[in-house]
């Protein structure tokens, strides 16, 4: 098990229902994609947030990450929709 801080933004946050949380991630969860899949199985809110994986972006410790990137050693992982700043 790995302890991780997760943070959520915009409609991902609204669907998940919390802005941040500490989680214990099973060791079988290796990549960003694995993590999203594992979260989806928790409840309907998470399932709805991650239902279209193409619309959810991730960052590992403040750096943009891809679905296949490993989460090993990460302290904070963020999930959010495509950005609309500027």
């Amino acid at each position, binding site marked *: 098990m790995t302890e991780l801080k997760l*943070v959520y*933004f*915009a*409609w991902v946050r609204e669907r998940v229902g919390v802005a941040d949380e500490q989680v214990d991630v099973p060791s079988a969860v290796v990549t960003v994609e694995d993590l999203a899949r594992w979260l989806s199985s928790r409840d309907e809110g998470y399932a709805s947030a991650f239902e279209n994986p193409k619309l959810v972006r991730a*960052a590992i410790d*403040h*750096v*943009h990450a891809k679905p296949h990137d490993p989460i090993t050693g990460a302290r*904070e992982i*963020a999930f*959010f*929709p*495509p*950005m*609309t*700043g*500027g």
Partner: protein
Amino acid sequence: MAPRVIIRIQANAFDAAKETDALSSHHDDVGAISTFIGYCRSEGGRLAALELEHYPGMADDEIKRVVDQALQRWPLSAVSVIHRFGVMKPGDGIVFVGTASSHRAEAFAACEFLMDYLKTQAPFWKKEHRADGTVGDWVEAKAEDDAAAARWKINV
């Protein structure tokens, strides 16, 4: 002389005039300043406000990375990026980007590059507040913004 870099993420309004002056003030060989200001729009009266959410820790890191790329690519004497968060009314400035260089082509290119990357890479999200008092949708990202960023052929 090292380039002068200003990066600020703030709730308060910015003063575009003061920020523009700061771009030229430390150097008398600045030949060209390009600035861009992005505003909150009413979308023809449909919106009362835009609410900007951001990822505090990452926003600063990500903008620094984008600015570093611009400094590596163009000979700039100054760069400023100011991005606001919180609730904005139509007419309020949301983002200010300014670049100073000896020549205009470099100042323009760097300024446009910074805006294209901020749009697609900086962790900010806009939610609409409608003029009829209801909370609207999250603004959707545009494919054209990804295309605009992609034409610089840089991975930030």
